[in-house]
């Protein structure tokens, strides 16, 4: 019991050592410099990144350190794929961006607004409206039809009228190829179909950033393609900013603007897909990619 408390105190002391978040202009300039050669995405000279992660640290129960020091910037319209062995902290980082996990220390800034620290519940809810999330286990609402799942966020959170929400829902379901399944309950859909409904649900909120947490890991191999096709379509035609935690190397290579390799709670290596896949700079990246092949 005392060990835990002690660990918590130490974690807090550690947190104080994290420097304050950078000024927006400074950070943007630094990020421009750093990311220039790392992404296929072309950003404007004076553009600011839409997600900025600085020295992010996350400890569970004061002892299990999952994220040690994560630094990452994501540009509007960029598709970032996060790779790494299990336990490397990929999902935790993603969940921290959505505040589903509270960061222990460090800074996360969305559109230059800091979300770490003491946000009120209302501000957190407001923030989450702008961050769509697709879960590994779909997490569809089982009591609602596919259409109802896509509508509920619009009607309850965005306060749209039912007619408006329904039109939007059907549009999004059509985009993921499930218009004819609009009245089906989640349990009557295959895993792949469920995940596509979940994507439609997230997209219907028109978020600034879409977060994908291993969206195909729970799917049978033959169902993976349909989901990836939908995601590819979103990236290429929708111009959506996406952070995708995935094990799908093929998808990362083809669709991603940038690939980020994480291990041990830090970003080990990042760069354009062809650079990382074909010429990994770090031995651990090479090892991981080798083991996947």
């Amino acid at each position, binding site marked *: 019991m005392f060990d835990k408390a002690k660990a918590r105190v130490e974690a807090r002391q550690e947190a104080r050592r994290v420097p304050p978040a950078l000024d927006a202009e400074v950070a943007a300039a630094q990020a421009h410099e750093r990311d220039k050669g790392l992404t296929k995405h072309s950003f404007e000279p004076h553009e600011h990144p839409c997600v900025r992660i600085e020295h992010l640290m996350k400890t569970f129960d004061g002892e299990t350190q999952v994220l040690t020091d994560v630094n990452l910037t994501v540009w509007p319209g960029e598709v970032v794929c996060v790779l790494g062995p299990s336990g490397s902290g990929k999902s935790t980082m993603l969940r921290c961006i959505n505040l589903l996990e509270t960061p222990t220390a460090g800074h996360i800034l969305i559109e230059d607004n800091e979300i770490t620290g003491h946000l009120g519940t209302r501000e957190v809810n407001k923030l989450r409206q702008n961050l769509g999330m697709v879960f590994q286990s779909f997490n569809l*609402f089982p009591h609602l039809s596919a259409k109802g799942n896509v509508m509920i966020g619009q009607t309850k959170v965005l306060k749209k009228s039912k007619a408006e929400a329904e039109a939007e829902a059907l549009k999004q379901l059509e985009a993921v190829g499930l218009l004819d399944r609009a*009245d089906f309950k989640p349990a009557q859909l295959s895993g792949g179909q469920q995940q596509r409904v979940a994507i439609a649900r997230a997209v219907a909120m028109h978020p600034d950033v879409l977060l994908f947490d291993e969206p195909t890991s729970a799917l049978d191999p033959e169902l993976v393609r349909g989901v990836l096709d939908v995601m590819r379509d979103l990236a290429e035609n929708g111009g959506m900013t996406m952070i995708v935690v995935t094990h799908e190397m093929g998808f990362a290579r083809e669709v991603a603007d940038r690939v980020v390799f994480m291990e041990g709670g830090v970003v080990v290596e990042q760069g354009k897909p062809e650079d990382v896949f074909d010429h990994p700079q770090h031995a651990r990246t090479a090892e991981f990619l080798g083991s996947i092949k």
Partner: protein
Amino acid sequence: MDARSRSVACTIVLALAFVCALPVQAWGLTTNKATAKPNEDGGSEVIGGLPTRLTWEGTVEEGEKVSSIHLEIPADGSFAESTTKVTALEGLSRAPVESEVSADKNTLTVSFGEPIGEGLLIRLEIYNMTLPSTGGDVVVSGTYQNQDGEQKLKDSDPPIKTIANTPLQSMVNWLDNQEWVKQWNANQFLGMFLKPQLILTSLSSLFPGWLLCLGIVIASYPFAILLGLVFALMKISRHRLVRAIAIIYINTLRGTPLFLQIYIMFFGLPMMNINIDNNVLGIIVMAINSSAYLAEIFRAGIESIPQGQYEAAASLGMGHLQTMVNIILPQTIRRVIPTVTSDFIMAFKDTSLLSSVGVMELMMFSKNLTSVTGNMTPYVTAAIFYLIVTLPLIKVVSTIEKRIAKSERGGGPRPKAKAKKAEVAVVDGQAVGAEPSLVEALSAPFKAGTSVMGGTASVR
């Protein structure tokens, strides 16, 4: 002394005073009484339309000689089949009397060979007559002949109370005369536990008790559900004090017998000068008791919803309350319906405990009837009444459980995919509700093809 016996006493006292104090002025044959003997099937009651014995008594006043008496009852009654025994009493000794009786429908005329002299009591015992089958108060009226001609008889007072001869009563009478019923009742077990006549009469006389049972449990349940939900939410609250209050409430009520709670409420409140109608208090006690059990059911239901559902709702930007109302509770309702129904069955049966404090419910009625008849059949009938409610509900529980199990596997009929296209066209014009109403949520488990299963558990 209740009001009726008081008024009877008053009447008697007044009548006596009248007779003693003013004998000369009260010149005429006085109707002392007119009574009817309870029929065999009526217990302590006189049933109209069934053979009974009417006794009429009158005293001949001073200086009077009565030569004939003419009795009349309401038109529906009948003397047609009757036989009449005429007695004249002088003090305690019987005076010789010669009489001739002629009966015609609702009138009966008794003529005396020798006029009856003053001071004698004339008693007419009319066997095998019937009173009106419609029930109610029956007054015997009529006239008599004395030496001065026809005089009017005073109406009998108090009137004879009769109850209506219902179809049920005639069925009982019919059963009485059946050979198989006699043989059935001759068997010690059947006659004691399943006497057909008593089953019939119990069914009718226990019915109000059964209604009260249902009324109490149905009235109490909405409150119980509401209270239960409140305490369930309190028990999963983040605040320790709120949680503690809920835990104390739930555990105290679940940890003590309902019987004790009933006693405390029914005897404790009047001690504090709080007097609440028995039935209302019964509803309150049942509601409070059930709420504790329901709170636990709801809490378990809410906690069985996977964490992923909260996260999905949160990722859409829903607040805590919105998540509860739109996502968690609708799913909880489906999950807990079988358990809540079971609890409803328990609560319905537990209303029987209220009989111990004088609530006139099913158990009370059957207890009374059993003690009057000395037969167990009313208890068996009460069992039938309980089963009428509980058996279908038990069936409902198992049906819902099967449906839920099926829909969790994604079974059941699917909506028609083709119908979709037509609906899409309509969308722009009119809103087509896709949101589940409360009614839909509640009825969902009864329909095929709805899912109550959450997504798989979330992964950190």
